[in-house]
């Protein structure tokens, strides 16, 4: 019997070597238990099933959101035997799995983010309507992409669409989506709106849109966001954080741009309105002009009439002083040697007077004074 005798350290080294060669990357599914976070950095938990339990170790940055014992998790990691602390699996990647766990994870995360105000209505910004420049984040080969583009082309034109082709499900999806959002936000000439969209699928497929990193990235985007996740039941956290949500990629296009046909109709209506207004204004101008002319006419007539009346009055007054009227009543104008006399003073018998009556003159000699 010739057993290999090893020191403890050597054994640890060899075992780890073996593990690395054989199981450099294991993916394990199990129920979460003994979950704890230390110093806000280190994460420790066990995954267990009916008969066994294995320890895991990682960092908080690897968490997709808050977790609770009892949830089902799928973890990718490296098994190793720590020189002092025993066997554990170092986490590379982890996510909740199964309908129940996913929903639980989303509920926990939703509560946490909601309390931070990420979903508040006041935060939501209006989208430019229509936008001239759109950043599209979706899978380039997907039906979602095809649907969105088709409806956009039917409805509107002149829009510049920049496509960031990303995975919308699977392990790498959250990171790619976040990177795309940051890419557009950092651009020198950023789009006016980001459209993040994917079609329907199972809960696992939509998991990326319920992760903390994607949700926070959407909430933090300086560019307004429109998120459209095709789904049957629950709204994803990404949609809650977005400025606008649509039920499907096609619906997103409908919300984003107007319909060419109805816009052309509106233009035609505007054209009619222009003509109507001008017509109305013309009618008003004509009416005002006519009214002014009439007033001018009336005013002038009235002035002339007033003058006439005034003149007649004065004429009548003047007529009262006409000497001819006095003569008509039997008075005579008496004159002596062509001079009118108004008194008997100085008159002598025998003087010849001229008496002017209304219809002629009489020569008369004074017989008595």
């Amino acid at each position, binding site marked *: 019997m010739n057993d290999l005798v090893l020191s403890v350290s050597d054994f640890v080294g060899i075992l780890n070597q073996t593990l690395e060669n054989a199981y450099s990357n294991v993916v394990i599914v199990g129920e979460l238990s003994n979950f704890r976070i230390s110093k806000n950095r280190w994460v420790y938990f066990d995954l267990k099933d009916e008969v066994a339990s294995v320890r895991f170790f990682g960092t908080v940055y690897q968490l997709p959101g808050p977790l609770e014992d009892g949830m089902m998790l799928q973890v990718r990691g490296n098994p190793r035997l720590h020189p002092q602390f025993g066997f554990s699996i170092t986490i590379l990647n982890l996510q909740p799995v199964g309908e129940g766990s996913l929903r639980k994870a989303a509920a926990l995360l939703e509560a946490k983010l909601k309390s931070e105000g990420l979903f508040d209505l006041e935060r939501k910004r209006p989208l430019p309507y229509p936008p001239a420049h759109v950043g599209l984040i979706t899978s380039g080969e997907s039906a979602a992409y095809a649907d969105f583009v088709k409806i956009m082309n039917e409805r509107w034109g002149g829009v510049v*669409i920049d496509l960031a082709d990303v995975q919308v499900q699977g392990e790498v999806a959250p990171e790619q989506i976040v990177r795309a959002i940051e890419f557009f936000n950092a651009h020198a000439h950023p789009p006016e709106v980001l459209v993040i969209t994917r079609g329907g699928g199972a809960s696992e497929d939509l998991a990326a849109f319920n992760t903390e990193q994607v949700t926070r990235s959407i909430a933090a985007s300086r560019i307004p966001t429109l998120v459209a996740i095709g789904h049957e039941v629950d709204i994803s956290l990404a949609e809650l954080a977005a400025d606008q949500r649509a039920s499907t990629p096609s619906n997103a296009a409908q919300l984003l741009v107007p319909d060419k046909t109805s816009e052309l109709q509106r233009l035609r209506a505007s054209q009619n309105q222009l003509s109507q207004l001008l017509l109305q204004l013309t009618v008003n101008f004509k009416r005002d002009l006519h009214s002014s002319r009439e007033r001018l006419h009336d005013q002038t007539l009235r002035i002339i009439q007033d003058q006439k009346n005034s003149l007649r009055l004065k004429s009548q007054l003047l007529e009262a002083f006409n000497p001819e009227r006095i003569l008509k009543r039997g008075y005579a104008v008496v004159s002596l040697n062509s001079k009118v006399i108004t008194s008997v003073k100085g008159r002598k018998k025998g003087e010849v007077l001229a008496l002017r009556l209304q219809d002629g003159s009489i020569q008369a000699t004074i017989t008595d004074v």
Partner: protein
Amino acid sequence: MSDQLEAILAKLESGELDVDQAIEQYQKGIELVKKLEKHLKLAENKITKVTKG
């Protein structure tokens, strides 16, 4: 451009313009309508795939 059209319509509705001004605004309005119609009918969307940083 459609904002300008809205503005012209508002001015005409206000009744503050005289005949000459009204005609001028009307003509500008008709011109805008023609331009917008042309744009709507002809413009196309341009899709570019961007490389991620």
